[in-house]
Structure formats: structure tokens, C-alpha cells
């Protein structure tokens, strides 16, 4: 007998968008691993050969595939180091805010009453402040570092998960099999873990993949305004921020990190978009925004 989980995976992989997304992501990841392991250039290795155009030769056997930046650092190496860094940070954001949001969502829907009301009002307030504004305010208070940027973005995105999880849990809670489980005399905790959570996970994962792309954009934007990564850390937003000063002489220093960032964001959006359609073809959805049909 075929396990149902494998089957789901198979069906998901059959969706073109998801396949393309995974393909792009894997290619970038492989390049990134390759670069981190084998690049002859350290990400902070400076050289007098500044602003070399793409494919220019170098003092090693490797050419500067994407040229060099204003300190003669290899743009290719830095861009793909940044892939690992930004992806890691985005994952940290999603794990942090996702797990807190999950806990809040479950607590809120299960405990109900005053706790639900208080938690959801707090979430309402956080969500009624435009996210990037709040992230900037929090990051400014915490001080500029990539770590603080992660915390700020995580705080801002908690309500997205909390609300989502709460609504899914509430609808799952009403389902007959949960009632049946209750009837069997199972404890609330057991029902949440065994019956409710598995139904939250797919929606949660879909949202998380969308939020990954948001987190990447937020991290880069915070670094761009100076509230995130610091030199010489290879980070897309910081790279673009520095390269912006030289964009007329050396467009590649800004464009290539931006392009790889774009491809990463695109791949997560493709995956998320496809997953969402797969999970709920009836609901009209557009990347990142869920429009309820009445």
C-alpha cells in the first residue's frame, strides 16, 4: 500500500510551478554550496582589481564570473555566500515567528474566551502597523545587526501565522473526527497534537514558503537602510546599498545580487502559489494575499 504522504508529495511535485520553483532554488543552492566550498576567492578578499566587468580574468585560475566590486571582491562569490546567509536568516525568521505564531494560534483557538480575545487583539494591533515600518522601528531600538533584524522581522510576522493557525484550528475543531476523538475520551492535548495539528501543517507550510520570500525581502531591505548586516558580511541588501554608489561605473555589482535575490524570491512564490492552489483550488488566491469569497 502506498503511504498517503508520499502520494501527496508526488502530486505536489506534479504541479509545474512547484517544480520550476524547486528547480530554481536547487540550482541556486547547488551553486551556493559549490561557491562556499570551492571558490578561490574569500568573500572578503580584497584586491586592487576593482570594478572588473563580468567574466574578467583574475589573479587566480578562476575568472571573476560576475566581476568585482569596489574593493576588488568577487561579486559571484559574495552573491552566493549571500544566498546562504539570506536564506539562513529568512529561515530563522520563519522558524521563530512560525513557531511562536503556531503556539499563539493554537492557544488562542483552544483556550478561547478572554485569552483568545486578548491574544487576537494584540495580533490585530501588530497587524494594523505596516510591517516594514514596525520592523524598522524595532530594529532601530534594538540596534543594527543582522541578528536584531531577524528578531524585528520575526515579531512583525507572528500575527500572520497566529491568525492563520487559529482559523484553521477553529474549522478543524468543528470537524466530526475531532468530535469523534473527543467522544473516544481523548485529552485536548492529544487531540491537538494528533488530529488538529496535522491539518494545520499544509496551510502552515504554504504560508511559510510565502513568508520566506517576504523575509528575504525584509532582511535585504533592512540591511539596505543600514539596520541589518554590516560590512564585510555578504548580504544582498548591503551589497546593493554599497553598489548603488557605483551603479554608473559598475552596474553588475548591484544587478547580480539583485537578480539572484529575485530568483530566490520568485522560486518561493512559485512553490507557495502552487501549493496553495493544490490545497484549496476553490479559494481564489493570489500570491501572499488571500481573498475570501463569501
Amino acid at each position, binding site marked *: *500500500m502506498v503511504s*498517503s504522504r508520499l502520494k501527496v508529495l508526488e502530486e505536489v511535485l506534479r504541479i509545474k510551478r512547484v517544480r520550476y520553483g524547486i528547480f530554481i532554488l536547487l540550482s541556486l543552492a547547488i551553486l551556493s554550496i559549490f561557491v562556499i566550498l570551492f571558490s578561490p576567492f574569500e568573500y572578503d578578499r580584497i584586491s586592487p582589481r576593482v570594478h572588473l566587468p563580468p567574466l574578467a580574468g583574475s589573479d587566480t585560475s578562476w575568472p571573476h564570473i560576475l566581476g568585482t566590486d569596489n574593493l576588488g571582491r568577487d561579486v559571484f562569490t559574495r552573491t552566493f555566500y549571500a544566498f546562504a546567509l539570506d536564506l539562513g536568516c529568512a529561515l530563522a525568521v520563519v522558524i521563530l515567528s512560525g513557531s511562536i505564531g503556531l503556539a499563539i494560534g493554537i492557544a488562542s483557538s483552544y483556550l478561547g474566551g478572554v485569552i483568545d480575545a486578548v491574544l487576537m487583539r494584540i495580533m490585530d494591533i501588530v497587524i494594523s502597523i505596516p510591517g516594514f515600518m514596525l520592523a524598522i522601528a524595532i530594529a532601530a531600538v534594538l540596534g543594527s545587526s543582522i541578528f536584531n533584524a531577524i528578531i524585528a522581522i520575526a515579531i512583525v510576522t507572528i500575527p500572520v501565522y497566529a491568525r492563520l493557525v487559529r482559523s484553521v484550528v477553529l474549522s478543524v475543531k468543528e*470537524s*466530526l*473526527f475531532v*468530535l*469523534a*476523538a*473527543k*467522544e*473516544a*475520551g*481523548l*485529552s485536548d492535548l*492529544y487531540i491537538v497534537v*494528533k*488530529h488538529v495539528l*496535522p*491539518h494545520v501543517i499544509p496551510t502552515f507550510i504554504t504560508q511559510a514558503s510565502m513568508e520566506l520570500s517576504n523575509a528575504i525581502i525584509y532582511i535585504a531591505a533592512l540591511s539596505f537602510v543600514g539596520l541589518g548586516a554590516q560590512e564585510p558580511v555578504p548580504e544582498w541588501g548591503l551589497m546593493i546599498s554599497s553598489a548603488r554608489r557605483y551603479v554608473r561605473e559598475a552596474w553588475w555589482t548591484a544587478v547580480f545580487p539583485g537578480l539572484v535575490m529575485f530568483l530566490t524570491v520568485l522560486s518561493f512564490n512559485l512553490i507557495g502559489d502552487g501549493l496553495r492552489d493544490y490545497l484549496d483550488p476553490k479559494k481564489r488566491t493570489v500570491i501572499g494575499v488571500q481573498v475570501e469569497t463569501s
Partner: protein
Amino acid sequence: MNSDVIVKTVNLKKYYEIRSKYLKRVIGYVKAVNGVDLEIKRGETLGLVGESGSGKTTLGLVLAKLVKPTDGKYFLKGIDITYSLPKNLRGKIRIVFQDPYSALNPRLKIVDTLIEPLLAQGVDKENAKEKVAKYLKLVGLSEEYLESYPHMLSGGQRQRIMIARALVTEPEFVILDEPTSMLDVSTQAQIIELLKKIKNEKNLTYLFITHNLAVARYLSDTIAIMFSGQIVEIADKKTIFSNPLHPYTKTLLSAYPSPDPSSTWSPEIPEDIDNNTLIYNQGCSYAGRCPLRKDLCLKTSPELIEVENNHKVRCHIYKDRT
């Protein structure tokens, strides 16, 4: 109290609040169960018949201890279990739901669904699996289904699983909430047969909820007719079918192909009266549809009165006959 009465309820009520859309003020109540007195003897099957919305499913949920009653008392074997169920009675009351499609968690294997009630009672996993296999056989399924997922099973098979799941805790009282209404006709008969067989084997007590008189007649010993949260007539099945008293029962039976064509009941339904008068007055809940309505019916609600031996009816017409 008669010792072979296993289930007894006294004036059991379940009201739901109606709240306003935005400010959530309580603006009224839905009286889903509105004062139900029942007695079910050991080994008896009580058929609870009513149209949808009559509160029969809510009553089932209250009796299954899934919904807390608003008022009234509920005894199992003479023990008051209205508010809590003593440990030794856990698993003694079980329910089989109407919809076998959504009652099974699609992400759990059959075996995991089946052993859940036993795990809840603290039985260890290995013993539980053994026991579950036995019950699977009892409901006519082979052991290989243990490792299946619900989506691989037919509706009848699923309902068998649900029955097995109800039986694994060795209950004494089983509530069957329209267990066959979602199934196709041929499967219905098989399930009914199965239920009957098991009942005899295990000496179970059933509350059989249905809107289908034919099924009720086949399976039940006693039949209670429910309307708008209340029992309007109750008697053993022969009496109900041969001598229906309540106008509602008569209406129900008239829709039911009767063996005696002469007893056709085709009354004229009186012209409509404003719904509000009905909702807000204290009268009989059936008054709005009753062909035999009198002024009294709009003013006071009738009591359930015993007209003949073990034949009770809730109607003003029979007030004088006692």
C-alpha cells in the same frame, strides 16, 4: 427506581444562545432540547424519530456526554452523570455518528483511529491493537484494513469501522445517530443487520436516532417521536404504528406507506398564523402546524401524559381522557 432501567433523563434541556452579529449580545435562545424525560431499559432499543431540526441529534450529543446540558438530570444505571462521568463508567456510553466520511481523520490509519478510545482508557498499545483486530472481525472486516487510510474505504466499510470503534470499549449504552442515512440502500440494510446482530450478541442498549420510520420500526422496541426539542409521543412500536395519537405522529405515519390503507390521515392544515405569536407565546410548539388546534394550544404548553399503559403523548386533546 426500576433496576433494569439503564438510562434515565429528567427534564433534560439544552439551549443555545443567539447572539447579535457584531456586538455579540444575547438576543434569544434556540431550545434544541427542551425538557426531555426518557427511560431506556437494559437490552431495549429506543427509536428516536423526528424531522431534521427537531433536536434529536443534540439530544444524542447530550446523552453521549459531548454537549453539556443546560438543565435537567441524566442518570446511567442510577448514577447521576449529568455533570461528570465517574471513571468506571468511561467508555460505557458510546455514539456512532451519522457521517462516516468525515468522522474518520483522513490522516490516520484505521488502526490508529480504532485504538484511540482504548488509549484514552490507558490500555497499552499492543493490547489495544489485539483487541481492535477482534472487533474489526466482529463488524465483518478483515484485519488487512488496519493499515489502510480512510480514503481507501467505502462508506459502508467506514461505518463498520466507526461501529467497531464504538464497541471496543465494551459499552452498555450506544447512541446511533442516523448511522445509515448517508449510505446507499443496499449498504443500509447490511449495517442495520449488523447492528441488530451485535446488539443481541452483546446485550447492548441502543438509542437509535432516525428520521426514517421504516428503519425505526425494524430495529426498535420503543419509539419516541420528537418535535421541536420535546418528546411528543412515546410508546412501544406496535402501539405507535397501530394507534398514533399525536397529530404530528399521525402526519409522519401518513407519509409512511401503511399496511392499512383505510387509516389515511389527510387533515386540512389551518391557515398560517404569525410566527412571532408562536415563538413568544407559551403555547404548544406544534400549534402552528396542527390541524386540530384549539385556543388553548396557543396559550399553554401541554404536558406529556400517559394515555394508556406506557403510551405517553404531549397533546391537549387527550387531557380529558386520563
